[in-house]
């Protein structure tokens, strides 16, 4: 993985020193809050409901054991012993004190991490497929591209005051695990007639006005990536609306101007920019690519895995649910569930973080990934290590066999933490997971994506959940709207609203009725919830959600 060079280290040290001085000036009264707020946001520091929150970037979700250890140390030293992994592959600390934040940033800087551009109207943390570099179905590793974009966008002088925030995602596989169609720019690596390049998608996004991104270029030669992205962002920087915050994202710019107009403007701008890059970006990309060389895969017997698989049904259940095919047949990708039934989705204790780091170092080529689904991956595990890894994970409550199932829920922090939230998300996720665990129905139900947001900004990706839940404030009471049929993959779709919302104590029973309807209507155990929904449409699910409406109509 990418190692910081002297330039990166110096830049970060200087930036942290500047922020330390800014915090001091805020505390001694030389800076007002109005002056300080944009400065703290640029460095990832928010003020939430009960405390400050520091959002730390984990670029494209990749980190090593040493970095994970520091995340654990920070949680113990300056927070409450845990961290929250987010849908942008970041980690958030919910309880830092203002005066401690510069020390936290220095500690991060020691291991090449930072919180820059995790807020504000800038290009945010670049996300990528969490199976990058390991997946069997991958055309190429998306992380060198993501790292090039990170370097280009970090402190980019032209793009520090965009009309609104700007999010990039990169996938190297046709099977999209990075939700690229719900990003301002989505990038997919591909090969055409032996030539490497990119499909460029623009104008996707969730939030108040959800939109599926549109193809801006179906094939962009590899060497053109940075000038082309710079052209897109600079066109948006001028054309994007600054009069109305709710119409400021590029999805609205694309929608209002039309994809053809945007394409013409981008191509015009690209023609000007392309000569200015002069190939230096491609030289950088070459050296970045070398840093992402695959680890030296070990060879050896995988018999211990096969034995455990055949003799231990609990291990087998976990292996069936939490392992994904690796490009090397003797290897597996391990998904560590941070979704134990009844716990907060995405929250890991410092002890759990340290154990994951230790496992990665000893048994998984010292690599870890954070997924946008708020889980942690060990991307490269020789199958002979799987029984030991399972046992170690189990000992720290990290062996829940629920990846991709009903309790593997994305939930934003909601009104338990977030100042923008209109309702709580976390307890709804906890109760759904607990309820279906009690019913022992999780594996019977099969693959299902539930995604919960505590406000219309959709950090919990509810629009693209098979079942989406949106928490709102209706006349001073929490109320939850259900959407159905959303899809976050290459066949991305926005879910359809099922009908009136449900009160806090009605939402879990409503989900239970939905699942009962699905189990009753599916044509076989192999038909997933989303497939049954696509086959039958909203009607049978609506009838299950609103039985009294049906009774009244009869």
């Amino acid at each position: 993985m990418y190692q910081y060079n002297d330039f990166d280290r110096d830049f970060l040290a200087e930036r942290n020193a500047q922020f330390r001085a800014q915090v001091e000036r805020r505390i001694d009264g030389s800076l007002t809050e109005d002056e300080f707020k944009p400065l703290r946001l640029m460095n990832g520091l928010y003020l939430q409901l009960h405390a400050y929150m520091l959002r730390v970037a984990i670029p494209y979700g990749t980190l090593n054991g040493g970095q994970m250890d520091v995340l654990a140390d920070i949680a113990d030293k300056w927070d409450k012993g845990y961290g929250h992994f987010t849908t942008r592959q970041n980690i958030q600390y919910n309880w830092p004190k203002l005066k401690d934040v510069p020390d936290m940033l220095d500690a991060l800087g020691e291991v090449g991490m930072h919180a820059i551009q995790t807020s504000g109207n800038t290009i945010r943390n670049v996300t990528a497929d969490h199976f990058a570099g390991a997946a069997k179905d991958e055309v190429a590793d998306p992380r060198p591209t993501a790292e090039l974009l990170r370097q280009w966008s970090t402190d980019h002088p032209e793009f520090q005051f965009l009309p609104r925030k700007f999010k990039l995602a990169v996938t190297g596989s046709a099977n999209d695990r990075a939700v690229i169609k719900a990003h301002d720019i989505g990038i997919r690596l591909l090969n055409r007639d032996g030539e490497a390049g990119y499909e460029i998608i623009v104008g996707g996004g969730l939030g108040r006005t959800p939109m599926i991104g549109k193809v801006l270029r179906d094939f962009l030669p590899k060497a053109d990536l940075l000038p082309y992205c710079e052209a897109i962002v600079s066109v948006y920087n001028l054309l994007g609306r600054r009069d109305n915050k709710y119409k400021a994202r590029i999805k609205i710019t694309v929608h209002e101007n039309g994809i053809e107009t945007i394409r013409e403007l981008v191509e015009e701008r690209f023609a000007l920019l392309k000569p200015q890059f002069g190939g230096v970006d491609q030289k950088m990309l070459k050296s970045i690519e070398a840093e992402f060389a695959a680890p030296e895969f070990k060879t050896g017997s995988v018999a211990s895995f096969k034995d455990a698989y055949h003799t231990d049904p609990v291990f087998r259940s976990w292996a069936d649910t939490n392992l994904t095919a690796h490009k090397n047949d003797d290897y597996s990708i391990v998904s560590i569930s941070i979704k134990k039934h009844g716990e907060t989705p995405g929250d890991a204790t410092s002890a759990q973080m340290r154990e994951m780091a230790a496992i990665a170092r000893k048994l998984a080529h010292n690599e870890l990934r954070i997924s946008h689904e708020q889980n942690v991956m060990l991307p490269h595990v020789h199958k002979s290590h799987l029984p030991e890894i399972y046992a170690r994970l189990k000992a720290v409550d990290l062996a829940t066999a629920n990846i991709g199932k009903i309790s593997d829920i994305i939930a934003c922090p909601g009104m338990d933490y977030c100042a923008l939230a209109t309702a709580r998300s976390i307890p709804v996720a906890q109760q759904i997971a607990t309820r279906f665990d009690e019913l022992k129905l999780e594996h019977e139900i099969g693959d299902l994506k539930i995604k919960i947001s505590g406000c219309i900004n959709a950090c919990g990706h509810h629009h693209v959940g098979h079942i989406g839940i949106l928490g709102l404030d209706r006349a001073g009471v929490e109320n939850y709207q259900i959407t159905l049929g959303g899809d976050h993959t290459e066949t991305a779709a926005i879910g359809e609203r099922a009908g009136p919302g449900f009160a806090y104590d009605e939402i879990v029973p409503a989900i239970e009725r939905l699942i009962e309807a699905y189990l009753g209507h599916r044509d076989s155990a192999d038909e997933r919830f989303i497939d049954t929904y696509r086959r039958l449409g909203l009607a049978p699910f609506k009838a299950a959600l609103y039985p009294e409406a049906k009774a009244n109509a009869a």
Partner: protein
Amino acid sequence: MSKPFTPKVVTANALLEGDVVYLTVDDQWSRHLSEAEVIEDEAHGDLRLLDGNSQPDVVVGVYLIDVALEDGAPQPTHFREEFRTRGPSNYDHGKQAELV
């Protein structure tokens, strides 16, 4: 006829810790809603909001919240403010743990 005035309290977050705080009669900031000054008329509310805002080196994000008096003690009328008096629902953190 205008709507009857709902009693109010001035709230904010402490600059250094981020804690939820409430303005008291003597211009201090308390962690306890029970110690807050309950404002009974609109003009006084506007004035106290200005007073709260005049301490930018102590607090951030000053605003008024609606309260109802229960046995003489102010209680928030909106669930968001109720959560702010307690802390998050997923852990025993925040005021619910610190103020017992």
